[in-house]
């Protein structure tokens, strides 16, 4: 049975591996099957995505998870109220350093197995031995309100390196990262795929560690939705969420990775080699010079509740915005962050199709050392492991204490 398209939805996306769910929803007919005529428009910056969502060119868009929080906290220009009714997967980033820096880190104990503790210690020792009159090492991230910025800073801080004092953090668009590294204008970067693979494959950098090792099963991109549109068109949004969930399920099947890689490589989408896409999809990363390592849960599109908009994810991002002085911590601001994520919309849209729905809206992050079955409605649900590399826990009910523990 085919349904006539009755909902026209325009979505903006950035050419990154984790736009996969949106692209698969369109290309594999999941949107069509829900009656959604999904138009995808590739953008060149997150600022442009934000602006076009604000003026109504887009109803929904691929967003860095902290962006909707920043918009609702009035930290960005042209901020329209944005809600998050679904996440677009877990993980997917890596931290890559220049060959020159990798040699120094390897000399000081960094190992080619992506182990973040050893890599962090080695980077700290390297930083400590630099002469005072040398410029600071420079690491790039894509955006101030991004998982990349926060996980890089988390890793540095937990390794005894003070961001902004010991290492300078700058901003570079993802497609230009590998070139900037090769040109020596930056010493390292944290970015989504395929832009670490780009440097490793070209032999201009070495992947030092990955998001999945710093914080396993951690949040990354979400679907940002214009709040006014969501209120006006709840049925269209619900249809889109069902399509995205089915697309995520398809993206997560290993048997589909080759086909997905081909689709993503297309000229209208990421327009980079399919082999590059396959690295991130399969988790078999080339760390540099053909040294292939398999990373568990490198990018998780569907399993482990990867599309569920956990309020504890919103609050963790908020805690890091406070930690790095982007926003003052007040009960009102914490409430804005909490209310940005909308598991209620996720539940009501997906209940009819039997997708696993967790019993809770928030969880203690970092507490699971092994895959753990949890209470759910619909299908059964297994979460974790989800540890932070330094063994810390984030309990969203103890937000104040967590924020306090990270002040220095």
């Amino acid at each position, binding site marked *: 049975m085919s349904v006539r398209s009755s909902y026209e939805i325009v979505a903006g996306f950035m050419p990154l591996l984790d736009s996969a769910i949106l692209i698969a929803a369109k290309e594999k007919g999941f949107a069509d099957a829900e009656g959604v005529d999904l138009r995808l428009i590739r953008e*060149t*910056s*997150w*600022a*442009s995505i934000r*602006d*076009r969502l*604000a*003026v*109504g*060119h887009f109803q929904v868009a691929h967003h860095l998870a902290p962006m909707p929080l920043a918009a609702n906290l009035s930290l960005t*220009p*042209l901020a329209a109220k944005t809600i998050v009714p679904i996440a677009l997967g877990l993980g997917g980033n890596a931290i890559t350093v220049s060959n020159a820096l990798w040699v120094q880190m390897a000399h000081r104990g960094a190992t080619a197995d992506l182990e973040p503790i050893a890599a962090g210690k080695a980077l700290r020792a390297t930083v400590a031995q630099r002469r005072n009159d040398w410029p600071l090492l420079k690491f790039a991230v*894509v*955006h*101030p309100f991004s998982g990349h910025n926060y996980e890089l800073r988390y890793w540095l801080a937990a390794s005894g390196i003070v961001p902004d004092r010991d290492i300078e953090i*700058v*901003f*570079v*668009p993802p*497609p*230009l990262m590998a070139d900037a590294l090769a040109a020596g204008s930056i010493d390292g970067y944290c970015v989504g795929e395929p832009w670490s693979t780009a440097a490793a494959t070209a032999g201009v950098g070495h992947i030092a560690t990955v998001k999945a090792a710093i914080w396993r099963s951690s949040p990354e991109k979400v679907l940002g939705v214009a709040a006014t549109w969501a209120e006006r068109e709840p049925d269209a949004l619900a249809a889109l969420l069902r399509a995205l969930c089915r697309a995520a399920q398809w993206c997560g099947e290993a048997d589909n990775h080759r086909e997905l890689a081909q689709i993503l490589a297309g000229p209208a989408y990421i327009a980079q080699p399919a082999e590059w896409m396959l690295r991130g999809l399969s988790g078999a990363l080339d760390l540099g010079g053909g040294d292939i390592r398999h990373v568990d849960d490198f990018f998780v599109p569907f399993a482990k509740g990867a599309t569920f908009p956990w309020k504890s994810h919103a609050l963790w991002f908020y805690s890091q915005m406070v930690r790095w002085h982007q926003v003052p911590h007040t009960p009102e601001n914490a409430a804005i962050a909490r209310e940005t994520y909308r598991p209620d919309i996720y539940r009501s849209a997906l209940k009819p199709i039997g997708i696993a729905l967790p019993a809770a809206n928030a969880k203690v992050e970092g507490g699971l050392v092994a895959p753990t079955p949890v209470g759910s409605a619909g299908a059964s649900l297994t979460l974790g492991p989800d540890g932070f590399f330094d063994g810390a826990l984030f309990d969203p009910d103890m937000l104040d204490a967590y924020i306090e523990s990270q002040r220095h």
Partner: protein
Amino acid sequence: MPQQPIALSILIIDENRLRAAVIEDGLRDAGYTQLTVVNDVVGIARKIADTSPDVIVIDLENPNRDMLESMFQLSRAVRRPIAMFVDRSDQASIEAAVEAGVSAYVVDGLKRERVKPIVDMAISRFNAFARMARELEDARSQLESRKLVDRAKGILMSTRGLSEADAYALLRKTAMNQNRKISEIAESLITAAGLLAPPEE
């Protein structure tokens, strides 16, 4: 009547040199004299420090906007904070700017009355530039399709012994029946004729 020079420093960032020149001209005609055009963002921090702009005009499609926005907030190169020009009382002009593909960033404390004319000028020049580019493209494709139709007519005239008028009528009728453009029918005919032509000696 020559206008008084307006004492505002404006930086135009646009990778499209032609469009940047069009905007520069417009602003100069309107009496702005302190204009700097940058086509490449390499070394932009230095450029901003040197020119100390009051207003920065940038194309919306520029991939470096995220970097520039964060630099405006953080960098030591920027002595005064710079924010995107958003006139909240005027939703229509925000939409017009995004529609046109341009955005403006202004230093803290600059009055909206002083910025609005610059933004409006940038919007109108961006739109004019887009219109020009579209017209050029239309003219190019019209010329292209006329050439195709002429060649297809020639093929019909020589293979079927039709007059030029009859050949054109046949092409037009076929296009209407198939709900396609006449240039598309011409193109298919030329391709088919090429496939069916006897091999060249």
